[in-house]
């Protein structure tokens, strides 16, 4: 990225303006959620935030519980920086930033107990449901954490439980009417700091100009995960502001999620 573009975006930020559109510092780009992108998945969704496009899908299988949580199912959420999504991403094993993305999204959903893990227990200590949520980035126009988190939650919300045969094995390709048991809806909201301005939902050029990044994953009333990224820092006051704003922003996004089935 050229220094000229960088200076331009920094100058805009100083005037409380955004890079490509007229939105305010605390405004998200347009969020669109489409469900059922893969009919072979237990649940799936495609999320667009502006030009960023991500799809996520849920697959479930039966496994054994971890010894320390014999009555709880498991959830694993993962994804990579797919090379189809950005001219700078290369094929190959995931690097630092891809692993960070995957782990931040995973923590937000797992630690918040978005899914009621106790209801995913079939036989205590022996059989539980394993849920795999995989996300794929199709177009990177910035703010991948929020897009991947939102796509994963949307896919989980649409997921139906697989059918079991008489011996308790999964019947592939058949589902019951029962949905995956949900407890709360955690939404990641990412802020970046350019000079002394803090803005939400950065596009990829804004991300490159930012000195620091903060992702707040919150459900209804509590905060479930935090991740500070980038080499810069935030003051205590700035962190406080981000937390307050994230609950407000979350409300608008939850409205979009409510619309999907």
């Amino acid at each position, binding site marked *: 990225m050229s220094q000229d573009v960088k200076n331009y975006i920094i100058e805009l930020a100083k005037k409380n303006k955004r890079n490509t559109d007229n939105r305010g510092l605390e405004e998200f780009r347009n969020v669109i959620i489409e469900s059922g992108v893969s009919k*072979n998945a237990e649940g799936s969704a495609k999320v667009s935030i502006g030009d960023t496009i991500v799809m996520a*899908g849920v697959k479930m*299988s039966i496994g054994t519980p971890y010894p320390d949580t014999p009555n709880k199912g498991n959830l694993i959420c993962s*994804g990579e920086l797919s*090379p189809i999504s950005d001219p700078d991403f290369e094929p190959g094993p995931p690097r630092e930033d891809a692993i960070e993305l995957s782990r931040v999204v995973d923590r937000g959903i797992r630690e918040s107990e978005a899914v009621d893990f106790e209801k995913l227990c079939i036989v205590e200590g022996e059989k539980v449901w394993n849920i795999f949520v995989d996300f794929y980035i199709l177009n990177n*126009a910035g703010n991948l954490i929020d897009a991947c988190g939102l796509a994963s939650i949307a896919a989980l919300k649409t997921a139906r439980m697989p059918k079991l045969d008489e011996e308790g094995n999964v019947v592939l390709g058949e589902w019951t009417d029962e949905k995956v048991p949900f407890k709360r809806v955690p939404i990641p909201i990412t802020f970046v700091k350019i000079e002394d301005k803090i803005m939400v939902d950065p596009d990829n050029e804004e991300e490159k100009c930012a000195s620091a990044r903060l992702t707040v994953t919150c459900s209804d009333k509590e905060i479930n995960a935090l991740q500070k990224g980038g080499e810069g820092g935030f003051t205590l006051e700035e962190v406080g502001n981000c937390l307050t704003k994230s609950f407000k922003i979350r409300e608008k996004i939850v409205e979009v999620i409510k619309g999907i089935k």
Partner: protein
Amino acid sequence: MSYKKTGRFDGRKADELRPVEMSVGILPNCTGSARVQVGKTVAIAGVYGPRKVRPKHAELKDKLLIRCYYDLVSFSVTDRARPGPSRRSIELGLVIKNAIERSIFVEKYPMSMIEVFVEIVQADAGSRCAAIIAASLAVADAGIEMRDFVPAVACGKIDDLICLDLTKQEEDVHDGEGATDIPIAYIPSEKEITLLQLDGKISEKDLMEAIKLGIKGCEEIHKMMKDVFKKRYETK
């Protein structure tokens, strides 16, 4: 049981394709992109380039380097596929490249490369054929000079019935003579077959008949591929 008498599971005629949908220019970051749906199989392809070859020693002095990557999305199949490259996906990347290379004027882009990424979002047999159609449309959408589009379709035999565009259910038939699957890519302007694989048992006579049917299917898809671009530039 004879499939010649009972017909196909979804009531299609032997030489009938599944419904096909195509669109191009769907991913803003890519130089060219396309989405192709054949029945329940969905493929998304994106192309980057022509650009500098990385690593530099892989550069070809006299022609364009083409790299293709085929990726089965983990939730595209009923049983979860492990994310990341498998031996199958690496082979398919290669056969897709070999299917489309003939259609591109590679000598016009020496010392540069294009990369084609294909994601299979939903799989119900024929995913490599859908991938080739999508890859070819995406390369065309990227404005790379080409001789022609590359349509692809599977032909084959279910028990005693020679037919076109098999579904997963048909591929899994074990009655009588079982199922044979023959994916084909055919460049109409060159009259050349650039993908030919076979999986099953079939006599020479039946094979020739199946391939002829496959070419007919490819010609049908070729027309649809042309129409996508005609329509795209008409509206603009």
